[in-house]
Structure formats: C-alpha cells, structure tokens
C-alpha cells in the first residue's frame, strides 16, 4: 500500500485511523516534570535554586511555629515556656497574645457585653449576599447560609448573647432562609434592607433615625418613579435625589424624634471610636465594596458619554482622586471636612472614612470598567441600537453584562486592594487590626515585645478573606463563560 501511493497521485482512504495514546515519555508525571521543571539546563538550575530557597525559608520558620506557646498570660511567661520546651536559644511564637486578646483583634473596644451584635451582623451579611452571589447554585447558596447561621449563632452564644436576642436571631435566620428558598426575588428586598439593620445593630441607639434614613431613600425612589412617568428623564433622577436629601436634612430628624418619643425602640449606643479590629475593617471594607461598584459603573459610563459636561466632570473626578494618595483623602475626612461643614454638625468619623474610601475605590473601578467597555466590539453597540433599544436599556441589557464580565479580574483586584487599604485608617486614629490594635496591645506590660504574632494572625485573616474573594471571582468567570461549552 505504501509503495503504491508513493508512486500514484490518486489515493482514497478506506479505513479511518483511531486516535492513539502518546508514547510513555510523552505523558503523565514524567512529561509534566520534564516540561515544567527540567526542560533545559537553565530551568533545571532555576528549579534547584527554587527548592533551596523554599528549604531555607521553611527550615528557619518551622521551629518558630513548632515551639509556639498558646497557654501564657504574658510575654515573659511565654518565653520561659519556650525555653523549657526547646532549650535556651530556641525561638518560638507566643500565640498566647492571640488567645488572650483575640477579642480586641476582632472587635476593638466594642463593649464586650455587646459582642453578639457584630457577630450576628456578620451572619446576616452572608444571608444578604448569598442570594446575590450564588443565584444560580442552590448547593453553594445553602452551604453559605448554613455556615452563616451555624457559625454566627454559635459564636454569638459563645460571646454571651442574651436569650431573648438569641431567640429572635434564630427565628430571623430560619425565616430568611425559607424566603430565599421559596421566594428568592422577595429575599432580595431583605438584602437591600440589611445595611439599615446592620447600622442599627452595630451602632445601636434608637431605631427611628435608621428607619427615617430608609424612608428618605424610599421617598426619593417614589419621587423619581413618578417624575420618570411624566417623561422628565434625567431631571427625574435629580428630583428623586433632592427629595431624599430634603427629607434627611429637614423632615427626617424631627419625624424620628417624634416616633422615638411615641414608641421608644432602642439598643445600647456604641460610639464609632469604640470600633476596631476586623469589625472596623469589615464595616469600612464591605460598605466601600458595595457602594464603589455602582458608583464606578456610573463614572465609567459618564466618561464614555457624548455629553461634554458629563464627560469632563467624570474625567476630572477620576483623575483627581487617582492622583491623590488615599491617606490624603482620609486626612481630609478626619480633619478638613469639619471646617467645611456647618458648625455643630457631628458627622460620624466612620461614615466619613467610608465615603472617602468609596470615592477612592470608585475612581479605580471606573477605569477598570472603562477597559471592559472598550473591549466590546462596536458591533454590539450597533446591534443594540439597530433593534431600537434606548441608551439605558442597551447599557443594562447588552453592554454592561458583557463589559462587567470582562472586567471581573480587575474589579475584584480593586476590591481586594481596597479591603487591605482599610488598615490605613490607623492614620486618622481608628483602631485598624494590623497596626493600631496591635500597638495598643503591645503597649500593655504583659505583651510588650509581641511583634510577629499579631502580624501573622491578622495577616492570616486578611489572606483568608482576600483569597475567598479571588476564588469567588474565578468561580464567577467560569459560570459566566459562554463560548466553549
């Protein structure tokens, strides 16, 4: 046969060849090792150097972890225990500081009798986000809900939740989970209400100012819808915002005071200066994340706009914010803002910081999303236009779903960066978990000299949270993949 078709031009294949496995050296572990670690002299040397570096680091760190002491109530006691265990010159971690002071790393100076409130808020937060983040996977949604309910409830009991609050909390968890299961769209309303509930639980005080703030949003929304029905377009949005602000400034406070006089519902008040540790980092980080995404989208669209005024305002805002270090903005928030506001206004420090962090992150977010918008082929805009979709519908249904999907890695990168940047609030005197809280603990006589342990502990928690965000982004990208299935 082979001689035949070597001589003739005509050839017809009568049997198709089945696919075969590659030779042994070309598959499996050997192939992987050869290709990835030892594919040439240079790569072999680099692999060996890498292994040596790993060995060097691990061999130095290992004793420190292996000789660690958890049961100690002061640095001196801890050092004695390490010496007794591993000899005079041995190094060993004093995780006793974490065991003794873990509550301050988590809650700062939040009153210890009220630790259960932030704990429950953390669980409720997962309830609020689970139906949004895992809308298409019932299994994952239930895993998150189960973890949130069990972990936060158990932790709240451990930190001493009063029985009546425990009963209410348990009921809320069960009812909310049922709502997510049977009426997922209605459950999203609860997700929107969560921030208000969280503010009340975290700061306490009367419930009515919070309800009044919520009422301001609802009023603004109603005004906007009514005005939009009259065909006022962008003016309707402005009217809605004006109605909300007017309510907050003039009518809201009085209404809240009156209602409180009639029906006092209140929790013990906790001041912002008592917040600290991861409670503070998460409060600022989560608020910033949730608010900077929509703001970033609006800024990105404004920067792409055909309207010169809108566009130049967006450009100026983005370039100004990106050109200034975050710490500058935080100083503005803590010191300068008070000069500009009318005397007597007491604008909460955490709220001020949240606003600045949000503005800062939204400028970066806008640029990330602009990249996604620019990556879409012109044809998508043209197809949307040619079907008669107006600008907002085209953006919402066609452009943004695709642009945001392209931008997921950048968006999550911004989120992670921003969450870690919340530690910078140390410069305006708030008790961030990494520096201020650790310094405060080191300032006590017992824990003088505990440098590495707090960093390792807070670093680990930051890593877990940031790594979770990064994995979620990968999951989301996989879920939204539409091309090769």
């Amino acid at each position, binding site marked *: 046969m082979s001689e035949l078709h070597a001589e003739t031009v005509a050839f017809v294949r009568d049997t198709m060849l089945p696919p075969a496995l590659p030779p042994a050296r070309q598959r499996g572990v050997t192939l992987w090792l050869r290709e990835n670690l030892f594919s040439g002299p240079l790569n072999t040397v680099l692999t060996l150097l890498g292994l040596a570096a790993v060995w060097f680091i691990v061999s130095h760190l290992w004793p420190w972890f292996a000789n660690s002491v958890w049961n100690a109530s002061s640095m001196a006691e801890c050092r004695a225990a390490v010496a007794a265990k591993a000899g005079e010159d041995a190094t060993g971690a004093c995780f006793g500081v974490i065991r003794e002071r873990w509550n301050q790393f988590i809650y700062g100076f939040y009153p210890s009798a009220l630790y259960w409130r932030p704990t429950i808020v953390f669980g409720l937060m997962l309830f609020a986000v689970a139906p949004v983040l895992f809308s298409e996977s019932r299994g994952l949604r239930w895993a998150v809900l189960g973890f949130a309910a069990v972990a936060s409830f158990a932790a709240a009991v451990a930190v001493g939740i009063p029985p009546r609050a425990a009963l209410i909390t348990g009921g809320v968890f069960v009812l909310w989970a049922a709502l997510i299961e049977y009426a997922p769209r209605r459950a999203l309303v609860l997700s929107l209400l969560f921030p208000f509930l969280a503010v009340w639980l975290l700061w306490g005080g009367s419930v009515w100012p919070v309800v009044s703030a919520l009422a301001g949003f609802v009023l603004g929304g109603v005004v906007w819808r009514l005005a939009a029905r009259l065909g006022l377009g962008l003016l309707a949005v402005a009217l809605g915002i004006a109605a909300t602000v007017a309510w907050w400034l003039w009518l809201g406070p009085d209404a809240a005071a009156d209602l409180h006089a009639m029906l006092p519902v209140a929790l013990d008040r906790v001041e912002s200066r008592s917040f600290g540790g991861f409670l503070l980092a998460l409060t600022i980080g989560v608020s910033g994340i949730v608010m900077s995404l929509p703001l970033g989208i609006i800024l990105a669209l404004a920067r792409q706009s055909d309207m010169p005024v809108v566009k130049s305002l967006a450009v100026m805002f983005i370039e100004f914010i990106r050109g200034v270090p975050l710490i500058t903005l935080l100083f503005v928030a803590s010191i300068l803002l008070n000069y500009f506001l009318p005397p007597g206004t007491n604008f909460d420090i955490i709220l001020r910081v949240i606003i600045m962090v949000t503005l800062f992150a939204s400028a970066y977010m806008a640029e990330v999303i602009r990249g996604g918008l620019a990556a879409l*082929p012109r*044809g*998508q805009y*043209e*197809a949307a*236009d*040619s*079907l*008669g*979709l*107006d600008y907002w*519908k085209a953006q919402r*249904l*066609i452009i943004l*779903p*695709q642009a945001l*999907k392209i931008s997921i890695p950048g968006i999550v990168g911004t989120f992670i960066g921003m969450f870690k940047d919340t530690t910078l609030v140390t410069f305006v005197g708030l008790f961030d978990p990494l520096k201020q809280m650790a310094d405060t603990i080191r300032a006590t006589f017992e824990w003088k000299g505990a440098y590495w342990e707090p960093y390792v502990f807070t670093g680990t928690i930051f890593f877990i949270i940031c790594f979770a965000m990064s994995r979620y982004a990968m999951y989301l990208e996989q879920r*939204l993949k*539409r*091309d*090769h*299935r």
Partner: protein
Amino acid sequence: MTQTDLHPSAAADPGQTAVLIERMNKWYGSFHVLRDIDLSVRKGERIVIAGPSGSGKSTLIRCINRLEEHQSGRIVVDGIELTNDLKNIDKVRSEVGMVFQHFNLFPHLTVLENCTLAPIWVRKLPRREAEETAMHFLREVRIPDQAHKYPGQLSGGQQQRVAIARSLCMRPKIMLFDEPTSALDPEMIKEVLDTMIELAESGMTMLCVTHEMGFAQAVADRVIFMNQGQIVEQNTPSEFFNNPKSERTKLFLSQILGH
C-alpha cells in the same frame, strides 16, 4: 445626471414609499463619503446595492437607520424624517431590521433570548408571546432546535440566520442587509441566501449590500451600482447585468463575474 429620471420606481405616491432619500451628503471628517444621494424605495421593493469596496454602499444603508449621521439632505423612513430627535430615531430603528456582516449576536444571551430581547423591552410584548414569535421565526430560518444554545456554539451560517430571525422578531417593515454573507464560508453562504430569498418572496422591503450577483439576479427588483460615494447606475437586474451602461459598471461586472 439625476437618478430619479432614470428609473421607473420612484413613485410619486408617498403612501407607497418605504424610504426616501433626497440630496443626501455625508462626510467623514473632510472625506466626502456620500455625494448627493437620491433614492426612493417603494414598499415591498427589493434592492441590491453593489459596488467596489469603499464606494459608500454600507454607509448608505447605515444612514437609513441612523447608525451613521448624514450632514445634509433628507432621509424619510416610513414617513418619519431622521433628525436629531432621539425618539424618532428609536422609532425608525424599531421598524427597520438590520443584518450585519459579522452577525453581532449578543454572546451572553441564548439564541432565544437574543430574539426576544427587543420585542420584550422595546415592543413591551409579554415574555410568552415574544417567545412564541421567536420560535416562529427560528422555525422559518430552520434552526428551532438551537434556541437554547449560545451564539458561540453555532456555525457562522447558523449565527447569521439567527441574526435574521432576531431582526424579524421585531416585525420590521424594512430589512437592511450589510454584506450578510461576506464573513461566511462558501458552504454556509447558500443557507443564508436561501433564507433571504424566502424573505424576499414574502414581500418584505429589502435593501441588500452584497457581492452575491446570483442573489441579485434571482430576487432584486432593482440593482444600484455605487462608486466613489455616488449612485452611478441603477436598473433592473436583467438590464444591469446584460446591458450595463457606464464604463465603471462594465469594469466592475467583468471583474466580479469574470472568474
């Protein structure tokens, strides 16, 4: 020379006119892309626009649904003049379907969602009704079984047929085709052309920019030949192909049909 004298179909009756273009000019910067275009299209008329690349034929049909803005002259589509009024533009666009060279399907939506999106959000049809319409047109283009796939899973020819179905779901009065087969493999061109021929036979007003001269001969009422932003010649297909008048047309035809 004025085109209106040359061809028989510039009917004076405005009720029968689908598209009316009068002395329309367009520039890209200082480049004069379309020069003094006069064109009137009767309802139900099928027009093929041919010409060398860069002659302005795509720009011309993109002006009809305002994907491109013209700088002087008038364009009246289905009785509505295209001006800067956004409401009018959206109205015209919802009456005029467009099929693109590169399909431009929405990759994040299924075939069915591609077809129901505009009827639901622009025409305000109930979802159910929109889905029935969509399935009807997907059957017409013979791909109802792909309704729940994503565009990325379909071949080019299938994607283009979905794009045609997506436009038809808006029940347009006029269909514009911008080189619908130019990005397709030869094997797939036929399936798209067959769909277009069926559509032409159903009485749809069509303006097609295409190099498929066989299609022009089979269904067109009129062939328009453009060069350098101007309409150089227009005639019935048989006259146009067998008896071209202008030198440029003869050259074009000899090159396109000569191989």
